């Protein structure tokens, strides 16, 4: 479990590298940048134009150029808080967390209740491993945001566990809160809940959670198999066998068109090999 945040961070870094190394052919963005440049040549002291081009650069994943334009816009007198937010955002995206923090702090001095800014603050604090502060900021986001996405809830729980990798009870509480906000059957949250119940060794509740999926979904074969795999991992082979039998029986009852689908063929193989593990 301790490795979880690391894996997550690795993914973020890889994504970031992908983003920064490749040169993208965003035809329309390039065109619009060139257009803005022309306008800037005509009005070299218009801070609005630098801001606008900076934002285009930002979307084009050219963070250095975006920052140059933002700073230029600032020095020309742009005091708009949106610009302050963008500066923090670009610092964050280019992994300059120290500057990101100081710019988002400056923003929040002007507008302390902006939920988007609080979220960015929480993300920056997470990056510099100020987990407690990050949690506090994200808590505000959770309480305030009108349309929370499942992704927000998942991000919040990952910060909670980064701060204390044993704090599954709080993480699960947050998931349960999230389910009341975005819908009780929200798949990504129910799957994360399952993961947390498993990782915290709550056997009964984990099995209950598998049963929730089995009862909720019209096609159950994949859930039966996953439940069986879990039961094997906690040495309940007899129960695992029953779950595998249910998986097989469910596949048998599937419409013929599904029985030869690649995913079902693979599942059958997995069932076989798990059965042979149990019986050996």
């Amino acid at each position, binding site marked *: 479990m301790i490795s979880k945040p690391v894996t997550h961070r690795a993914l973020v870094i890889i994504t970031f590298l992908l983003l920064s190394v490749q040169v993208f*052919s965003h*035809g329309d963005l390039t065109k619009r940048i060139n257009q803005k440049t022309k306008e800037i040549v005509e009005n070299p002291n218009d801070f609005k134009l630098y801001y606008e081009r900076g934002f285009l650069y930002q979307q084009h994943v050219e963070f250095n150029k975006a920052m140059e334009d933002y700073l230029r816009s600032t020095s020309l007198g742009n005091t708009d808080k949106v610009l302050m937010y963008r500066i923090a955002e670009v610092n964050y995206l280019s992994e300059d967390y120290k500057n990101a923090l100081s710019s988002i702090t400056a923003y929040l001095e002007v507008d302390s209740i902006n939920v988007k800014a609080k979220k960015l603050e929480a993300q920056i604090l997470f990056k510099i491993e100020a987990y407690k502060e990050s949690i506090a900021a994200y808590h505000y986001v959770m309480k305030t945001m009108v349309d929370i*996405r499942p992704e927000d809830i*998942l991000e919040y729980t990952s910060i909670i566990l980064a701060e204390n990798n044993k704090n599954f009870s709080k993480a699960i509480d947050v998931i349960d809160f999230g389910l009341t906000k*975005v819908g009780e059957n929200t*798949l990504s949250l129910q799957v994360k809940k399952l993961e947390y119940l498993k990782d915290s060794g709550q056997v009964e509740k984990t099995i209950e959670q598998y049963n929730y999926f089995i009862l909720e979904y019209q*096609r159950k074969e994949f859930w039966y198999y996953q439940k069986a795999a879990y039961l094997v991992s906690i040495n309940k082979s007899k*129960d695992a066998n029953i779950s595998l039998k249910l998986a097989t029986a469910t596949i048998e009852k599937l419409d013929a068109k*599904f029985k030869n689908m690649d995913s079902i063929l693979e599942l059958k193989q997995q069932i076989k090999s798990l059965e042979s593990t149990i019986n050996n």
Partner: protein
Amino acid sequence: MMKKITQIVMMLFTVYSFSQTEPIATADVNSIHSTTSINVERGPYLQSGTPTSVIVKWRTNIATESVVNYGTLFSSLTKTEKNLTLITDHQVTLSGLTPNTKYYFNIGNNKGVLSQDLTGDMYVITAPAIGTKQFVRAWILGDPGTANNSQREVRDAYYDYVANAPINNGKTDMMLFLGDNAYNTGKDAEYQNAFFDVYGDMFKKSVAWSCLGNHDGQSADSATQSGPYYDIFTFPTEGEAGGTASGTEAYYSFDYANIHFIILDSHHSSREVGGAMYNWALTDIQNTKNDWIVTLFHHPAYSKGSHDSDEDHRPIEMRENFMPMLEANGVDLVLNGHSHSYERSYFLNGHQGFANTFNPDEISKGGHTVGSTGHGDGKTDSNGAYEKSIEATEGAVYITTGSAGQISGGELNHQAMYLSLNQLGSCVMEVEDDGKGGQNLIVKFIRENNEIDDYFTINKTGIVTPNVVKNKSGQESKILTYLEDSKLITIAVNKNERLKSVKFYNNIGELVKRSRKDTIKISKMSKGLYVVEITTNKKIYTESVTIK
């Protein structure tokens, strides 16, 4: 009674006022300039249609109540749904409807009707019950939102097509928007010009669905899930339309007849394997029992148009992360936009590399085209339709069709594409009976000049007759016999064995019944799947039975 009179007076007034202002009278009434001066500025448009419900949305210039009158007879809209809060952006859900049924409607406020169609061209036809096998037509529009004449020509070409279609003419079961619905940044005013003002005639009788494009994403804020895109559209987040609950309008799914539609967000949401959207899509596709699966997302898995799917990270990630999973679970058709061209693939499977690694001779695992016709044109009157069956479940056609509003060229030479055109147009998908117990999924590319420049067919056999596996009335073994009529299960073990115990486990693996007898009454057991563990003095048998 009062309301009816008001309605009639209003109708007369409207016709009169139109005959005054417009010599060529159109019966379509979008706004009625009465003394109240409340006008409908947007809509009505239909959202999140299901077999039993639909959401009607519209906008008025002044805050007022929301009233929808509806009914199955145009001359008598006997039912009313209303919300008395004074608002300008109206949203009314009609529920408790009958599947596959035409409901006429009009919209208004407490004082009367504000918008109606005197020719009966404002209606919703509810979706058929999930799994129904019937003719379905979807109009597919990629990157339409230019608000220019090209967009209108493409629209009109489809209107002509559907008005003269040989089957179900005039009927468009749904509109599928592939994103970038309103240039340049998906602002509300841009949506008005490029979306509502252009497709208004279709919006009042056909449910519109969409995925998020990058231009929509410039005004829509994913961090707070707000902004025009999210305000304008209302999509099912809790599986209301037949799919799995995603908890977000950024990605969602729905069923229509026997087709399952999966709408992904290739722009804002994480495209990682194991991310929230991925996990959702995996569960969603593995939970459908429908015959066809269609996926929509904005950034093209394959394109050498104005965007290059070998260079942009979003197409690469969608192709590498999502396509193997969707293909393994039976996706049939993938619809993308972003590049402003029409690029249509062969019958593909497992081609996740760059364009230059496409190898049509490779027809096995990790291979690229499927079946004997897979590398053909997919035309029934030429190389033959692409084929799927109970045994051959692989193969999907990918279409990058982002030229419903403009064309932007590009190399247009992606090897996986059968055809690449720098032409304006939109697509129509039609699913119909093949007359042989299967169905055809036909897609046509309709140019702005009414020409059909491309078409293909995917034929799927054996789906019209449902697969009733007559397996001994739910009995699945030799030892165990399920006597459905007498509600008994009998156990017959080998002669040299002695029965010791019979245990019944229910569908979540709980032990619910024990017996030592070889004839067991099951009249009190609930219906469903059971695992039966039969222990003899020599062996344990594990069987399953479905009690009906």
